[in-house]
C-alpha cells in the first residue's frame, strides 16, 4: 500500500469515527467532542500563523473570546439566528486580526510574543470593564441551538454534527490554501524572509493576511464554543486558554493540518483526567503530562503518525523487494500498485 493510500485510509477512519461519535456516546461526552471541534478550529488557525508562517501569538484566546462574545451578544441581545453568528464572528475577528497584524509587522519573536501575551492578559479585564454590554464577571447564558424537528437527532447530536460540518469546512479551506501558491508563499516567509522577498513575495501583505486569517479562525471557534457550552464569562478566556491553544498545536504537530485535532483532544481531555486523579493538583498533573509529551514526541502526535506511516510504507516496499531496508539517497522509486 502506498503512502497516499495509507493516508487516505487513516483520514477515512478519522472521519468515520467523527461521524459515529454522536451515536456512540451519551450527551455529556458528545458535548465534550463538540468542544474539541471548536478547539481544533482555533488550534488550526493558530497553526497557520505559528507553524506555517513562523510568527508567534500567545494571545489567540483574545480573538476566541471576541468571537464568543460576538456570537453571545448577537444571539441574546439582537435575536440573530445562531448560524449567522459564525461568519459574523469570523469576519469581525478577521478584521481585528488584520488591524492587529499591521503594527505586529514591526515585531518579531520574543517581542511579538510579549505583545500578544499582553492582549491575552487584558482580555478578561476588558470584558469585565464593559460589563454593561457583556454582563461582566457573572457571565451570560446563551440559548443553544435545538435540533430541527425534520431531523432525527437529539439536540446534542445535532450540535455536534453542525460543529463537525463547520470544522470540516474550515479544515478543507486551510488544507487547500496551504497546498496552493498562497501556502507556498506563507511557508517561504517562515523559512526565510530575505530569500522569500527576493522571490517577489510581499512579506508585509503575507504576514498580515495570515494573522487576519488565523484570528478569523479563532473567532469562528469562539462562536462554536458558545453554541457548545451555552454560557460565556470572562474567566473562560484568561491567559490559560491562549497557552492551551499553543500547547495544542505543539502537541498535535506544528505545520500540520491534522495535528490540530489531536491537540484539541489533548487540551480538552487531559485536564479532565488530571482532575479525576486529584482535584487540587489538576494543574500540576496537566503540566507534567504536557512536559512528558514534549519529551517523548517533539514532533507532536502528527509527527508520530508520520513516523508510523513511514515505517509501514518502507516495510511494505522492502517486502516487495522494491526498496532496501535502509533509506538510501537514490532516486525515489515510484510506489506502484499495491
Amino acid at each position: 500500500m502506498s503512502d497516499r493510500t495509507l493516508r487516505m485510509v487513516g483520514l477515512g477512519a478519522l472521519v468515520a469515527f467523527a461521524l459515529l461519535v454522536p451515536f456512540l456516546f451519551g450527551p455529556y461526552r458528545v458535548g465534550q467532542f463538540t468542544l474539541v471541534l471548536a478547539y481544533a478550529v482555533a488550534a488550526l488557525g493558530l497553526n497557520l500563523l505559528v507553524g506555517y508562517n513562523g510568527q508567534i501569538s500567545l494571545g489567540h484566546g483574545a480573538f476566541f473570546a471576541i468571537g464568543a462574545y460576538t456570537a453571545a451578544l448577537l444571539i441574546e441581545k439582537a435575536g440573530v439566528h445562531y448560524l449567522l453568528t459564525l461568519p459574523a464572528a469570523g469576519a469581525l475577528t478577521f478584521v481585528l486580526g488584520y488591524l492587529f497584524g499591521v503594527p505586529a509587522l514591526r515585531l518579531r519573536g520574543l517581542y511579538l510574543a510579549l505583545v500578544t501575551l499582553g492582549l491575552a492578559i487584558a482580555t478578561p479585564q476588558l470584558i469585565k470593564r464593559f460589563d454593561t454590554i457583556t454582563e461582566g464577571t457573572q457571565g451570560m447564558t446563551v440559548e443553544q441551538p435545538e435540533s430541527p424537528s425534520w431531523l432525527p437527532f437529539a439536540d446534542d447530536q445535532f450540535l455536534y454534527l453542525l460543529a463537525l460540518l463547520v470544522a470540516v469546512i474550515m479544515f478543507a479551506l486551510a488544507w487547500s490554501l496551504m497546498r496552493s501558491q498562497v501556502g507556498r508563499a506563507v511557508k517561504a516567509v517562515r523559512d526565510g524572509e530575505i530569500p522569500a522577498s527576493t522571490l517577489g513575495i510581499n512579506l508585509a501583505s503575507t504576514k498580515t493576511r495570515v494573522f487576519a486569517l488565523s484570528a478569523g479562525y479563532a473567532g469562528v471557534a469562539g462562536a462554536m464554543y458558545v453554541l457548545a457550552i451555552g454560557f460565556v464569562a470572562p474567566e473562560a478566556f484568561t491567559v490559560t486558554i491562549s497557552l492551551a491553544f499553543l500547547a495544542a498545536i505543539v502537541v498535535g504537530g506544528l505545520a500540520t493540518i491534522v495535528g490540530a485535532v489531536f491537540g484539541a483532544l489533548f487540551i480538552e481531555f487531559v485536564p479532565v483526567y488530571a482532575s479525576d486523579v486529584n482535584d487540587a493538583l489538576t494543574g500540576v498533573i496537566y503540566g507534567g503530562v504536557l512536559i512528558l509529551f514534549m519529551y517523548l514526541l517533539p514532533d507532536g502526535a502528527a509527527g508520530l503518525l508520520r513516523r508510523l506511516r513511514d515505517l509501514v510504507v518502507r516495510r511494505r516496499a522492502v517486502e516487495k523487494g522494491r526498496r532496501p531496508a535502509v533509506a538510501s539517497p537514490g532516486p525515489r522509486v515510484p510506489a506502484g500498485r499495491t
Partner: protein
Amino acid sequence: MRRSWLALLLVAALVAVGCGRGDDDGGGDPGISDEEIKIGGSYPFSGPASAYRSIAEGAKAYFDLVNAEGGVDGRKIKFITLDDAYEPPKAVENARRLIEQEQVFALFNTLGTPNNVAIWDYVNEQKVPHLYVATGASLWGANVEAHPWTIGWQPDYVSEAKAYADYLDKENPDAKVAVLYQNDAFGKDLLGGFEKAIKGTDIEIVADESYEVTDPTVASQMAKLADSDADTFLNITTPKFGAQAIAAAHKLGWDVLHIVNNVSASKLLVLEPAGLDASQGLISTAYYKDPASGQWDDDPAMREYKSAMRKYSRANPDDPFCIFGWGAAQTLVEALNGMEEPTREALMDSVRHMDIRVPILLPGIRVKTSGTEDGYPIEATQIQRFEGENWKLVGDVIQAPHN
C-alpha cells in the same frame, strides 16, 4: 492490507458500541435506587476561594455518619463533588457532568453566587433539584415560580445587611461608612441590601472600593478607604480578601468600627491569618453555633458534630465552614426523609414545605419554608462581636422574615 484495516475498524466500532448511548433504564428518576441516592456538589477545591472546601468536608462527614447508621430509608448517600475553582464556566461544566454523566438525583450546596447564577437556568430546565446553594444571595428565594427547583439555605445577604444597618443605627446613627466589596453578584447583593436598609437613616456611605476575585490583593483599595473620613468600615469580602482587609486596616492604624460580613467571619480561616490582635472589636452576624467558641462545648449537637468530624474527616472541626456544611447536609437529609416518593418532584415538595429545627443553628432559629410564599429557609440571625479569643453573641436573635 485493505482487509485488515477494515477488520480493525469493525472491531473498534464494536468496542465503541459497547460504550453505548445508554438510554434511561425506564421508570424512576435518575440517581436514586433502592440502595443509594446520588447527590452532586460543585465546590472551589482550588483557586482563590478554596477556603470554602471545608464546607464540602463538613457535609461529607454528616453523610458518612448517616450512612453508618443505615442511610436514608436504607439508601446510602453517595456525595459526588467536583472542583470549579470558583469559576462560573467550570461550574457550568460540572453541573452538566453531574446531571448528564453522573446522573445525580439532586444538586446540593453548590457554592458561589456567580457559579449558581451561571447554572440555575440549565438546572431548572433539566428539572433537577438545586438545593441549599452555599450562597446568601437574595435571588434564590425572590421568585420561586421562575426557578422552582432552586433554593438557598443561609440567611440571605439582604437580611444580613439589614442587621448591620439596624445595629449601626443604634450604635452610631450618624455613621459615615467606607465599603470594600467584591465586584460580583455576591458583593453587589450585600452592598445593595445595605444601601436599601440605610435609606431614611442618617447613615451614609462616604467611600467605596471594589475588587475582583481574581485580584491578588486589596492593599490599594484599603489604602484609599483608610484615607477617607469614614468612621465605620463595611467589609464585604470572601475569606482570602477579608483577612487581607482586616490585616491592612490594623496595619494602617485605621481604628474604626469594623463590620465584616458573615462569610468572612471565620476565626480559623480569616481572623487567625489576619492576626487576633487585629480582629478585636470586629462585628459580624451568626446563625449557627461556632465550633471554635468554648460556649457550645457541652451542647449535644456540637458534641455529635465534633466526634463525627474526628471520625470521618481530616478537616479541622473548629472550622466554621465545616459546621455550615454539616448543617446544610442535615437539612438535606431531613428533606430526603420527608419525601413521599423517590422522585425529584417529591423531594422539592418536601423541601418547600418544611418547618424543622436543625440543632447546630443558634437557639431560636428554625428552618422554615412555605411553597411559593416563603422561599427562604433561614431568615434569622444574631449580631456577634469578636472579643479576646472568640466571637461573643450580642443581643437577641433577630427574626427578619421577607414577607
